[in-house]
């Protein structure tokens, strides 16, 4: 499944770059279209992704706008059912700047594509993007793999402490006196 969605994503990156951008995850920002690009109507996209060649991706470090989320494998963010999947792709450096898309697959068909990160040049003038950077939520980042010292979270009570991550971190270094 992951290989398939990653492959769909690759073609979708090309699709998005070629045709349209819209930012339904970006709050009040109105849908908008890259200069010189064609707009696809909102809603289900009938085009089969297999007919669109992948975008060429130049080598090199991602531009500055992409630094808040490292490029990585596609991550299914809400796998509701086997035939109903939302996949958020990696940030892909392109000639226009970093691009990240989210695709929705319903019944094995591509249902929607949402660009959640767009090239700098296109959104620099849009105020919401000047202060809010959408970030990929990873499937799992546990304390052990992240090598952490402490945890910041909503107020942890004494009752909740026993089963908390912080308690585990503390127990490693507690003084025996």
């Amino acid at each position, binding site marked *: 499944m992951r290989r398939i969605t990653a492959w769909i994503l690759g073609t979708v990156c090309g699709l998005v770059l070629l045709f349209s951008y819209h930012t339904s*995850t970006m*709050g009040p920002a109105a849908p908008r279209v890259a200069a010189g690009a064609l707009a696809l109507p909102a809603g289900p996209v009938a085009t089969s992704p297999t007919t669109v060649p992948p975008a060429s991706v130049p080598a090199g470090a991602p531009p500055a706008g992409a630094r*808040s*989320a*490292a490029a990585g494998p596609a991550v299914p*963010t809400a796998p509701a059912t086997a035939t109903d999947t939302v996949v958020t792709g990696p940030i892909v450096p392109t000639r226009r700047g970093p691009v990240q898309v989210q695709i929705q697959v319903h019944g094995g068909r591509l249902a929607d594509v949402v660009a959640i990160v767009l090239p700098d040049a296109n959104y620099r003038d849009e*105020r919401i993007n*000047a*202060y*809010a*950077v*959408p*970030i*990929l*939520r*990873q499937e*799992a*980042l*546990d*304390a052990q793999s*992240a*090598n*952490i*010292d*402490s*945890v*910041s*979270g*909503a*107020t*942890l*009570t*004494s009752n*909740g*402490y026993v089963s*908390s*991550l*912080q*308690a585990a*971190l*503390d127990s*490693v*270094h*507690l*003084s025996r006196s």
Partner: protein
Amino acid sequence: MTGPAPAAPRRAWVEQIMGMPISIHLRGAGLADGAVEAAVASVFEDLREVDSVFSTYRPDSDISRLNRGELTVAGCHPSVTEVVDLCDEAGRRTGGTFDPHLPGPDGRTWFDPSGLVKGWATERAAAHLEDVSRRVGVDFCLNAGGDVAVGVATTASPPWRVGIEDPDRHHGLLGVVPLRSGGVATSGSAHRGGHIIDPRTGRPADTLRAATVTGPSLMWADVYATATIVAGPAALEWIADLPGYEALVVTAAGDLLATPEFPLER
């Protein structure tokens, strides 16, 4: 290419004060110095005193007596005046989204500065650790129920790595913030339900699941995190304009948004 330096010696202390766990982690060659134990004791002592003055759960605290009309602000412990002034300033800085005046169970307005006192008390207590850090060369990380203040003895010290809790996954993290100074505070509903009230509506604020703010002052980071929960994602705009402060939020829909410079490692 040399291997990683051997880990510095490290110790931790934990006490339960103000209804929450207070963890102190210290590391460095100076750990054995007698001044270290004294500084740690001073931190806990400070926080216990703050609890006795400001606890809204203790009927004999100055704040409880103030709310019952048995004391005036001037008749309270002098730190109450300081906190009242800071609450006023917090209200001004956040456009009224931070407000310690809440509707009480009896219908009257209660003064509950808890949203500011936690960060204020933690930052104030951390001064003992700042001091011993400079004197004997140890790094410190003070965690008060999820609000974290840190410091390092030298520029060669590695940063403290603070995990940011994922409000939707027990033991899950949104990422890691490496910090050498200042603090990181998180507000939200993960452990206590909708406990942040929108002063404009009197109802729980629910557009965001969590808000994390980093900055040079833990107290202000905490105030801004609380205000962000109330104000919603739009608060990212004014936090991005505050020198030294950055914010990360999880929306009710589960989206993650941050100010451009938020130092999140994944």
